[in-house]
């Protein structure tokens, strides 16, 4: 009896499996995008993950849009004018823009949204960083938004690009912190059709969009819990495009007949860094500072020798399987014009590295193969920690251990829970060397801040580096309105921190994405940055005939 039930169940499952699918000719054109992960929340104020921002870019509009070459373009406004003192910006909002529910989008919505972000300190990014310089926002009957700043800043575009415009008529009636916004009403080229958290986001083309119309009917972002499944999904044709994959999968996808691999600088680059604890005891934070770093790391010669002994190309080849470029500072090549490409990196030269340490007095006094401090107090044995969830760090640590043992430096490697690592890191400075990294904003300012003395007590400075000249330059570029002049300052700052060997930046990893060539054509792949899920690509792709 039981067996019978079982057979019937198995049979039913197989039958159902066999008859699934099957389509008709009138089906909408759907692009399926595979994502490792899903949006954390659709409330733009609360959102942190890039997966959420990908959806916001498609469903909402902002004052400016970020181009794939790193520049900005005006989006919902016809014009932007700035007063001579740089404090008052006037944006003329386009007439006739409609929300997805049919209501008109006006300057009032824009002003209301900016005020919402400005007045909600619980919104971690949109309030904390992007509205720092907002003083007041008002609107006129002429459909204009007037934004007054408390300081004239050079990078307003990059501050406004993530401030998505929300419909006042909906948001004024909800709890701005708890609202989940699962039925997003935006004004962008795509509308929210269906959302299942951690499963998928289904968007459909907004046929009333004020700009060019998308050529597809629907975009579906499907979430996968692991990247291996993602790779199998594109191989099997269950998704048309994927935006991430393990480095090891890239080679196998390259050989698939119907799949094209796209490699380039990522839209929001992740910069891996090798952090030296060089906090001056005088700067040790009063609140929570432990500052137990190895004294040798305060000596630039030691850091310089380690930089000379680091074979970045080998790191790239082994850790990233070749999918990256040697790094210089926290400002990656993906930031385009802000990246100082004139810096000459330290040559990989073990002899020079040994010479540097010999000259500085670090010799192996006790003959154990490890150099000692000039006063003989302790050996050059450094603790080296990395977050235990990192895939790249263990391999990198092993290679660095080998590279640096060639110059008489020993490591005590250990993978640490990311929370514990945060506790060791900053502002405690209770470590010697760490492997970690940052995500970069389109504007260089946020990562340049990491090197400043001001950042030490707040946990953003990981090295404890403090250089008054640098701090002054940082303040200067914050208010330099002339683009070229600001660029020169930003370049000078990179030169400065590179010369001081504040970090060793092993590499800038490339974005590796892939699409199926037998499904859609027209993906934008010739820009400085690679992002197939960017609105520009999704607007122009067409089904393969």
């Amino acid at each position, binding site marked *: 009896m039981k067996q019978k039930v079982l057979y019937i169940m198995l049979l039913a*499952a197989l039958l159902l499996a066999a008859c699934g699918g099957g389509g008709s000719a009138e089906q909408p054109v759907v692009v399926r995008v595979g994502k490792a992960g899903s949006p*954390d929340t659709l409330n733009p104020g609360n959102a942190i993950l890039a997966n959420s921002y990908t959806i916001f870019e498609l469903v909402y509009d902002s004052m400016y849009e970020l181009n794939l070459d790193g520049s900005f373009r005006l989006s919902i406004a016809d014009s932007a004018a700035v007063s001579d003192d740089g404090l008052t910006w006037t944006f003329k909002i386009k007439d006739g823009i409609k929300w997805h529910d049919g209501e008109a989008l006006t300057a009032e919505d824009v002003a209301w949204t900016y005020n919402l972000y400005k007045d909600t300190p*619980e919104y971690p990014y949109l309030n904390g960083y992007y509205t720092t310089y907002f003083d007041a926002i008002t609107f006129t009957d002429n459909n204009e938004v007037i934004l007054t700043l408390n300081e004239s800043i050079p990078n307003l575009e990059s501050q406004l690009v993530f401030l998505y415009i929300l419909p006042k008529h909906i948001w004024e009636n909800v709890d701005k912190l708890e609202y*989940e916004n699962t039925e997003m009403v935006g004004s962008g080229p795509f509308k929210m059709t269906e959302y299942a958290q*951690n499963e*998928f986001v289904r968007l459909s083309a907004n046929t009333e969009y004020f700009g060019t119309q998308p050529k597809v009917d629907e975009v579906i972002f499907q979430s996968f819990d692991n990247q*291996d499944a993602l790779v199998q999904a594109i191989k099997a044709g269950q998704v048309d495009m994927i935006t991430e994959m393990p480095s090891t999968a890239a080679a196998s996808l390259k050989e698939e007949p119907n799949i094209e691999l796209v490699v380039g600088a990522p839209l929001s680059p992740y910069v891996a860094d090798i952090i030296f604890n060089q906090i001056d005891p005088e700067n040790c934070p009063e609140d929570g500072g432990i500052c137990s770093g190895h004294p040798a790391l305060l000596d630039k010669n030691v850091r310089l020798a380690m930089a000379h002994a680091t074979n970045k190309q080998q790191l790239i080849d082994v850790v990233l399987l070749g999918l990256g470029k040697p790094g210089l500072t926290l400002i990656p090549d993906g930031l385009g014009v802000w990246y100082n490409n004139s810096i000459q990196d330290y040559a990989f030269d073990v002899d020079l590295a040994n010479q540097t340490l010999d000259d500085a007095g670090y010799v192996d006094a006790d003959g154990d193969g490890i150099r000692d401090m000039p006063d003989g107090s302790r050996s050059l044995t450094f603790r080296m920690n990395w977050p235990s969830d990192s895939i790249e760090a263990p391999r990198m640590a092993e290679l660095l251990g080998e590279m640096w043992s060639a110059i008489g430096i020993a490591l005590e490697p250990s993978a640490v829970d990311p929370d514990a690592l945060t506790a060791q890191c900053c502002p405690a400075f209770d470590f010697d060397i760490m492997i970690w990294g940052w995500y970069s904003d389109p504007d260089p300012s946020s990562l340049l801040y990491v090197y400043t003395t001001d950042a030490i007590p707040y946990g953003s400075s990981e090295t404890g580096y403090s250089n008054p000249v640098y701090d002054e330059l940082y303040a200067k570029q914050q208010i330099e309105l002339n683009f070229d002049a600001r660029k020169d300052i930003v370049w000078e700052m990179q030169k400065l921190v590179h010369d001081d060997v504040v970090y060793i930046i092993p590499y800038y990893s490339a974005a590796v994405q892939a699409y199926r060539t037998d499904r859609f054509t027209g993906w934008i792949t010739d820009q400085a940055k690679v992002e197939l899920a960017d609105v520009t690509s999704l607007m122009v792709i067409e089904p393969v005939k």
Partner: protein
Amino acid sequence: MNRTRIILRKSAWAIFTIFIVIIFNFFLFRVLPGDPARAGIRDPRLKKEAIEALQVKFGLDKPVINCFETLNPIKLGSCTINPMETQFFIYAGNLVKGELGISYHTNRPVADVLAERLWNTILLIGAGQILSILLGVVLGIVAAWKARTSVDYGAVTASLIAWSLPTFWLGIILLFWGSTVGLPVGGKATPGISTYPLIQQWADIAKHMFLPTLTYTIVYMGEYTLIMRSSLIDVLSEDYILTARAKGLNSTQILRDHALKNAMLPLVTVIAINLGFTVAGVIQIESVFSWPGLGSAIFEAVIRRDFPMLQGAFLLIAVTVILANLLADLTYTFLDPRVNVE
């Protein structure tokens, strides 16, 4: 009579255990290092004010409990404050109201997320358990009945292999195989299927369930086969079975009426305990096949260091394990009257 007392006493112990778990669960996440408000967010754009606002939002600005400001690092605080203003009693008070807090990661009430995910997991575990129990029992009976023949050796070897296979590895292998034969590699349903007729939606879910259920069945089937086999072999060597044979009963009668009832006892215990633990055990299967259940929620919460979510999930798992044990205990007293004797 006696039975009621036993049920009451066992239930009281279960409730007491849950109570201990609730307390332990709270402090477990408070002794972990790091600042939960910053967990998962490491960004120079996050200013001090924003961190403070987040701490207030999640109630982390309040002392953990009277006399202790924080537990890692241990920071003493005032002992005379109103206990209802401490994190512990707010947590306990919310629990009474059925609230498990707000997830740091999704900003949604933890209870809502868990409730949503629980059904998907029950669907997966339900199908997998039924299949593995049926197959395991049948295979175990056959192996025991044909003990020390090639059928038995084959069944035992296969079961041992299946039982010792690492779940995630088996899952990945099946995923690779499944993708080549057109089975979906992830998710519960094809996105957008909700506009189709109901029968097609079910078919779609069945198709998505196939690989994870298969993985689950293979892994648990081996265990059930082995237990069933050894338990039945034990029973079959008892004197009363010999008596049954001597009375001239046929094999089916001996198995069905005399041997199986007693041989099932150990299996019932294992199944009941497994039911409790599989809620946690499906983490690997769900994260391989992106099945939107509790397991993948826990996996995600660990990655994001979403403490309220983990706290809620741990509580749910603990309660399930305790209840499953209670159930096993009680079933036992019904199946085997000897257990009633105190």
